């Protein structure tokens, strides 16, 4: 009886050790991948939100979410695409909620609508063309928008974008083509 108890305790300790080691290995792997994919997550969020602070916040949220579910990811090679999707979705949600809030504030404000005075950042960063491009990009369908964004980030090739989104090359080409065409039509 005494021996059995001792053996059981040993097994429990061993299991704890194994679990701890697995967790440590997972954490190490995640951090390695994070160094590679963290900037991409931030840029995707920045491309959607066009605000550094918000983009940082969203990217951090997305990375933490990925961290919590990292052990459930079957194919670790798909981490980059997975993180990009999470970030893109979170950024879109944030942008939508921001737009809703802005719309509400506009409705509740005085009937005489006034344009918000441009901030120092706006004056420094934006020109007319850029703001038009941003507006046109916002109106694109989500799928086209993501392809356009990823192809613009870090000079990703179409093959890389296709691999990242796990979609055929032809689909990437067509989405990019229609996205650019729509943008040109709006900017012309």
């Amino acid at each position, binding site marked *: 009886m005494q021996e059995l108890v001792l053996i059981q305790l040993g097994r429990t300790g061993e299991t704890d050790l194994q679990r701890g080691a697995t967790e440590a290995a997972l954490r190490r792997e995640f951090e390695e991948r994070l160094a590679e994919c963290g900037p991409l997550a931030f840029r995707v969020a920045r491309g959607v939100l066009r605000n*550094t602070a918000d983009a940082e916040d969203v990217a951090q949220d997305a990375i933490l979410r990925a961290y919590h579910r990292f052990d459930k990811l079957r194919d670790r090679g798909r981490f980059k695409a997975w993180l990009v999707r999470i970030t893109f979705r979170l950024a879109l949600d944030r942008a939508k909620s921001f737009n809703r809030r802005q719309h509400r504030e506009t409705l509740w404000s005085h009937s005489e609508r006034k344009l918000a005075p441009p901030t120092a950042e706006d004056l420094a960063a934006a020109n007319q063309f850029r703001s038009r*491009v941003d507006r046109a990009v916002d109106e694109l369908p989500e799928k086209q928008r993501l392809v356009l964004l990823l192809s613009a980030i870090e000079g990703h090739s179409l093959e890389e974008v296709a691999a990242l989104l796990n979609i055929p090359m032809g689909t990437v080409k067509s989405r990019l*083509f229609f996205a*650019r065409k729509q943008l040109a039509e709006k900017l012309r």
Partner: protein
Amino acid sequence: MTCNHYKQALLELAASGPETKPGPKLQAHLQACTSCRGAFENERRLFASLDSCLRASANCEIPSSFSPTIRARIQQEVQQEVPQESSAMRGSGRATDRLVWVSALAAAAILLLIVARLDLRLKPQPTEEPFVTQPAQSPSAPQTTATNPLQDAHPQIAPATRKRFAVKISTTLNKHSVLTGRGEPEILVPPNQEILLARYADRWRRRHQSPSLLLTETEPTQTDPLQVPLIQIAELDVKPLGPLAPDQESDQEYDQK
């Protein structure tokens, strides 16, 4: 082919990106037609500026605080997870102990409740015993049996209600009553007052019965007027006073002194 036909193709070529080369027919037309070439160049410039704008926007500098903040947040999450796990391990034992205690207390309370209810049921109902023990009948005392006036006044009340009544009485008459082992009030009456109490009880009972008597339906019957016989008083017989008794004489002497 007209320029309009090529125009659409040129726009699509420009939208396809700078890497895409025009076909031989389109290339020939571009070389021949200056307006189409100009339009194509314009489109290319537009797309070039669009691409540069998108790239500039997409490839902005990453804040230096981004990576350290992320690592710090992950570290924080890890540290939060560890105490949670250990506290969950410790807490599970405590929770089990607490559960055992709570269930034991609940069981004890239920048992007490059951016992109390059983005790209440097993207690004998208040019997129709006389309220006061009947004293020895004196010839002048009326023939009344002093029963509990409350019991007689409410014959329709259920035993349980009567029981509650009895308890109330026992609390109000606490000073003058002694609770017997069965919980029946027994009033201690000073000597020679049993009859008075019995009379009071009888009167009380009759007073409380009268409304019920009034309420009872009676057959409407013709009653004859009451006929009372004439009172006949015999002649008064006046007698002179006799000599005083010896003890009466001594009283008179005492008064004179």
